[in-house]
């Protein structure tokens, strides 16, 4: 399975965050100043272009200072009512367990339209009375919607890191991946990213994953032909290929690895092969490619890779019988990979609860997280007494209880019973 390097090499501590030393310093000092009492500005507003480390900085700081980070995206706080649910959390610096708390409202730009207006207002209200540090993050702090928020916040600007700084980060990754990379090649990627570290890391992964060495020639084509352009060309060769040979050749042209290419095809094939029979054939071919991937995994016989390639390229190309090639349909980045990293955190929590179940129930953590946890969830939502008993029996922590109960009121009812 494809695991994004942006996640794998995400800085865990502030020391690893690249660039913006002054902004980070200002932020750290403000957070630390809370120890001496509530400062003048109760919220910090971090803003700057995508992929410069805003979210990462807040996460790393919480980690370094051992603070409890309550992290929310725009989708969690659209409405006034949704925001108010966090008001209680904001009214205390120390949490139940004595760790200090910091609240992050991330991706503020995501609030749009009138429905979200209430959310912006409610956040402003919370800021005014907050008893713990609140951090807001957005790309554009000067959006007129944020005017009230802005006036109440310590403004911290994140600038694009320099190519040298980006380069340093890329070098570190190559070293850990055991890739011998030419300085020129990495410089090229760094420059092209224009300070967006996320996209630089993505480019690096697309170009270098699985390779032993990365040369300037491997990347220079990015110069005259955009990376996206190439994957699009490859996709066209496969989804609109007339011959098996032609479709198969696409693999050599693609500068992403086979797993990633599979994801691209799997994502895009349905929109380009809309006839139900064609669609069924294409998905069938992809499922066969996947079967061969499994056989490789089980036997470690990599020569089977040619069949994976056959099915996912030629197999998909030959699926087109009825679908007309007229019209223009765009290609897009595999959504499933993005979705996967989004839900990763939730699944980690499920597995942690699974581990608790395992200790008691003679069942693997994996299966418990899928088969037993849903019932716990029902119990925790409906019966505080039973939930409290089970929490004790399973030795669940507060975070787990909150996850299972799904709401603050229920969590409180349960913790009251726990004494």
């Amino acid at each position: 399975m494809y695991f994004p390097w942006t996640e794998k090499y995400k800085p865990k501590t502030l020391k690893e965050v690249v660039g913006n030393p002054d902004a980070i310093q200002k932020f750290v000092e403000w957070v630390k100043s809370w120890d001496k009492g509530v400062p003048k500005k109760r919220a910090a507003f971090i803003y700057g272009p995508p992929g410069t480390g805003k979210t990462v900085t807040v996460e790393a700081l919480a980690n370094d200072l051992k603070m409890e980070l309550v992290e929310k995206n725009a989708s969690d706080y659209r409405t006034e009512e949704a925001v108010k649910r966090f008001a209680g959390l904001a009214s205390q610096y120390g949490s139940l367990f004595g760790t200090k708390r910091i609240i992050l409202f991330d991706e503020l730009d995501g609030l749009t339209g009138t429905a979200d207006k209430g959310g912006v207002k409610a956040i402003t209200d919370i800021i005014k009375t907050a008893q713990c540090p609140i951090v807001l993050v957005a790309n554009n702090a000067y959006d007129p919607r944020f005017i009230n928020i802005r006036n109440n916040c310590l403004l911290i600007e994140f600038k694009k890191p320099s190519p040298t700084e980006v380069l340093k980060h890329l070098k570190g990754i190559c070293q850990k991946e055991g890739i011998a990379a030419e300085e020129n090649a990495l410089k090229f990627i760094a420059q092209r990213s224009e300070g967006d570290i996320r996209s630089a890391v993505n480019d690096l992964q697309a170009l270098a994953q699985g390779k032993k060495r990365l040369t300037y020639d491997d990347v220079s084509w990015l110069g005259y032909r955009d990376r996206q352009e190439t994957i699009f060309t490859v996709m066209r060769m496969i989804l609109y290929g007339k011959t098996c040979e032609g479709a198969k050749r696409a693999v050599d042209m693609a500068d992403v690895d086979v797993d990633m290419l599979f994801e691209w095809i799997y994502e895009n094939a349905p929109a380009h092969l809309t006839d139900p029979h064609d669609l069924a054939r294409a998905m069938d071919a992809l499922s066969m490619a996947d079967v061969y991937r499994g056989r490789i995994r089980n036997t470690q016989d990599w020569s089977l890779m040619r069949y994976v390639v056959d099915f996912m390229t030629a197999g998909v190309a030959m699926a087109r019988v009825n679908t007309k090639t007229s019209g223009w349909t765009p290609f897009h980045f595999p959504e499933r990979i993005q979705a996967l990293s989004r839900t990763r955190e939730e699944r980690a929590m499920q597995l942690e609860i699974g581990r608790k179940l395992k200790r008691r129930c003679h069942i693997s953590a994996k299966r418990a997280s899928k088969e037993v946890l849903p019932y716990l969830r029902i119990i925790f939502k409906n019966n505080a007494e039973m939930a409290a008993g089970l929490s004790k029996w399973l030795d669940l922590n507060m975070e787990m209880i909150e996850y299972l109960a799904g709401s603050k009121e229920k969590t409180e009812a349960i913790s009251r019973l726990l004494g």
Partner: protein
Amino acid sequence: MSFEMWAEKYRPKTLDDMVNQKEIVERLKSFVKSRNVPHCIFAGPPGTGKTTAALCLARDLYGEAYREHIMELNASDERGIDVVRETVKTFARVRSIGEVPFKIMILDEADNMTADAQQALRRTMERYTETCRFILCANYSGKIIEPIQSRCAPFRFTHLPREEHDKYLQYIAQKEGLKLLDDGVNAIYEVCSGDLRRAINTLQAAASLGKPIDAKTVYSIAGKANPADVQKMIETAMKGNFLEARKQLRDMIQKYGVAGSDIIRQIHTEIFRTEVPEPWKIKLADIVGEIDYRLVEGADEEVQLSALLARLVEAAHEMKDAKKV
């Protein structure tokens, strides 16, 4: 206040307490009597008493302090060869003191062990037979490599029959002071099809609502416990909206962590209820079966199941065409 998961609270302690699986229990008891146990494979569907039987056998054999003589290892969590090399070997080679000259290693969910790890196990099993006996629990014995199967006595666990299932649930209900109505028990059997772990969990979740347990309660619990709204996904596909159906599938797998095997089981049930031409039903069943097998082999759940969704789109489309004629 004392609450535990009822599936644990009511897990049988000795072989005599086990429900059903009569022949198996008899044979296991004869092992206890002769104080000798061969390597065993306990195979069968989930929640039929495999792990329980292994634990009961150990308790009957060693007495209350049985924990000192056994080790439980779950292969789903520790699938690698290193575990066999280190943990298993270390445990297996040290002789146990006491009346029974060997220890027991319970390798649970053993069908999730990698082929390598199984190969490594094969030698260990032979080398240390004198000091350690292995009980492998698995849903599919087919996933245990031949050489290991040949070293083990096979035991086939089957789903609990209707009467036994009902009786056991009513027994728990009575102990817990619940009002469990007849149609409630029926519904539990229908949604859990004899998987006792699932049945007891369903019962406990239903009990948490604090009212008499009837069919309606059970179905609503089963629905909630299964965010897999498979029916809706099938409908979406049959309307021809593949992309939306695939999105729903993705949510089930990624967001709610529903097991692919659960989704496929429900699809199988639903297929025979949907409005596709009769001959298509059997064609689809064939595809479902094939995909079920692939999932067991460790294939990518979303990729495989979405191939099935595409077939549903196709089936619905053909049906529409046929009507036009």
